[in-house]
C-alpha cells in the first residue's frame, strides 16, 4: 500500500507505469484521476485543506478495507493539497488485481469513501471571492451501495 498526501504535482503516466511494473501476477491495473474542473465562472484556484495526521490514517484505513473486500495486489493513493489551478490533477488512485472486476470495484470504492470520509475540504476561489464547496448528498448516498 502506498499512500501519499502532498502539495507537489505528480506525473500520472510515471505513477501508473511504476505501479504496474511493481506488480507480480496481476492481470489488471485500474487507475482513476481527479482533475480540477473549470466550472465556476472565472475559477482562479481550488484550495484544498486537509487534516495532517488524520488524513493519512483515514486513507490507509479505506485502502485496508478495500484490500479486505477484494482480491488486490496493491493500492496506490495520491492526494494533493494547497492551491491548484483549473485542469491540474488533484488526486489519483490505482489498484491491481488478478482480474479486472476486483480492480475496477476497489477503485470505485476507494473514490466513494475518499470523497466523504477522508478529511479534505475544497474551496473555490473566483474573482468574486472564495467559497467552501458543500458536500453533496449523492456522495454520502454513494457509500450505501458498498
Amino acid at each position, binding site marked *: 500500500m502506498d499512500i501519499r498526501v502532498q502539495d507537489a504535482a505528480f506525473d500520472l503516466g510515471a505513477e501508473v507505469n511504476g505501479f504496474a511494473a511493481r506488480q507480480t501476477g496481476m492481470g489488471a491495473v485500474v487507475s482513476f484521476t481527479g482533475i480540477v474542473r473549470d466550472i465556476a465562472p472565472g475559477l482562479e484556484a481550488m484550495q484544498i*485543506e486537509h*487534516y495532517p495526521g*488524520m488524513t493519512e490514517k483515514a486513507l490507509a484505513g479505506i485502502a485496508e478495507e478495500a484490500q479486505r473486500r477484494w482480491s488486490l495486489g496493491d493500492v496506490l493513493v495520491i*492526494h494533493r493539497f494547497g492551491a491548484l489551478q483549473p485542469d491540474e490533477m488533484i488526486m489519483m488512485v490505482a489498484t491491481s488485481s488478478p482480474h479486472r472486476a476486483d480492480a475496477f470495484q476497489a477503485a470505485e470504492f476507494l*473514490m466513494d469513501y475518499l*470523497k466523504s470520509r477522508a*478529511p479534505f*475540504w475544497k*474551496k473555490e476561489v473566483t474573482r468574486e471571492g472564495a467559497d*467552501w464547496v458543500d458536500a453533496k448528498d449523492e456522495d454520502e448516498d454513494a457509500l450505501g451501495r458498498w
Partner: protein
Amino acid sequence: MDVLYFAWVRERIGRPKDTVETGAATVRDLVEELRAREARYEMAFADLDALRVAVDQELADFDAPLAGVREVAFFPPMTGG
C-alpha cells in the same frame, strides 16, 4: 486537550487550534463549553448537523466520551477526491 478547527469552522472561529482544560464528559459537553466562550464560537457551533467531529483523529459522534482523549477536531462534511 487540543481542539482543532478546519475549513469554515476555522475561519469563523478565527484560529486553527485551541488548547483547553476541560472536564467535559462528551464532545457535546465540550461544544457547550466552547459556545459559551465568545460569539464567534457560538456562530461556528450554531448548527451541529452541519458539523463533523473527529476524536483522536478518528471520526466520531457528538456523544463520544472524552476521557483520556488528547485531540478533538471540528469541521464541515468532507469534500475530498
